[in-house]
């Protein structure tokens, strides 16, 4: 490395390797940093929509990971296939979106009774 920095390799990998997959971490490669983790629960009336919000206030649109639980103890990343008879996250960007100050996830409830859903949003310190 011509510059000063930090470099940590996987066991058995050469310190001089330039293959990114050989690295545990390196100051040469910016890491995806988790600046916020939010676990939330929404209650959605039958036929209704409910929203979960993360006020990150980063001033830019961050890289974001969304996980949702619409079936108890079963989590999926992003937007699973909509459940015609149950609860699902709404991928329509008019309802679920990431902004420069906050991220919003919308849940739709097509069941006949009020239900709940949980979400986990990881907000990264990197532009999305």
């Amino acid at each position, binding site marked *: 490395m011509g*510059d000063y*920095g*930090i470099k940590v390799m996987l066991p058995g990998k050469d310190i001089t390797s330039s293959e990114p997959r050989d690295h545990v*971490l390196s*100051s040469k*490669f*910016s*890491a*995806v*940093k*988790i*600046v916020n983790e939010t*676990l939330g629960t929404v209650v959605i009336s039958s036929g209704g929509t409910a929203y979960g919000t993360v006020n990150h206030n*980063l001033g*830019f649109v961050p890289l974001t*990971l969304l*996980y949702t*639980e619409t*079936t108890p*103890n*079963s*989590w*999926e*990343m*992003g*937007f*699973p*296939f*909509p459940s015609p008879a149950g609860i699902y996250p709404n*991928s329509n960007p008019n309802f679920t979106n990431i902004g420069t100050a906050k991220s919003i996830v919308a849940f739709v409830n097509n069941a006949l009774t009020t239900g709940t859903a*949980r979400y*986990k949003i*990881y907000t*990264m*310190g*990197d*532009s999305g």
Partner: protein
Amino acid sequence: MSNIGIKVVNAGTSIQSNDPRDIILSSKYSMFKYHYDGTISLTVNPGDTDVYGTVAHNLGYIPASMSYVSYPDTNLQTFVPEIPYGVDLQRYSSAKMGTSNLVVGFHLAEPYNQFTYDINDYWSTRRGANYFDVGKYSDGNTMNGATRFTNINLNKNESYISANLDVLVGSKGTASTDTKFNFYGIDEDNTSSFGDPMGRDRTTSTQSKSQSLPPINNYFGIDVHNEVNEIISRAGWSNGNAIGFLFFNNNSDTGAYFGDALVLPASKLTITKSGSMTITFKVIIFKDRII
């Protein structure tokens, strides 16, 4: 930083910057930590609609993860879960995380390599075109019938797994005894639309059936593998041709009969072809917990 830690910033950026985008790494911000990075392949066999595979992580909590899927007909990886394009689902993949396992799944709207054909023609010797009657009517008259299906996706002499004719009982008689009939394929290269097809050539393969009828609007099945094989082995058969079947009453009791009309749902022909598909998932599980 008031606490002891590590902070590395991008070249040309102040070490005192609080903008996360200026920071390469910092002990102030957690990073995802790999727990598992591997692939899992699922085999989709003829007739399958949902296929699953399990990746054990045994973390005791629900971890963050990322999954990708690639299909044999593309060289591209796509995110999981995926929502099929448009309103009509054809296929989609899923990945569900639990406290011990991550379960990947592949889902089809229709069974894999299974082709279902809706009825195209009915014939009844009692009611004529667009109707279907087999047995002995309440007035004692014999009824014979025929069915026809078009655009059959089978090559000449193609080997396949199964061919089943599901006959819809749209109406039936009051007799408690079975409806008895002899069954044939129509032995023609590409049997034409019906105008009394009962005199058309018949396959050598035949079946004598004594059929207990289900409740109205339910189906009973006939294995038509032999009849279909005989038809698609004809010199003049080609993919996309039509196939038909003939039903002749065989001493049914008076009032033992079934019938239908050419309104969907109606009788259908289902052919299951051989050949499997391999779906490959790339799964990354982090040590970081969702909950």
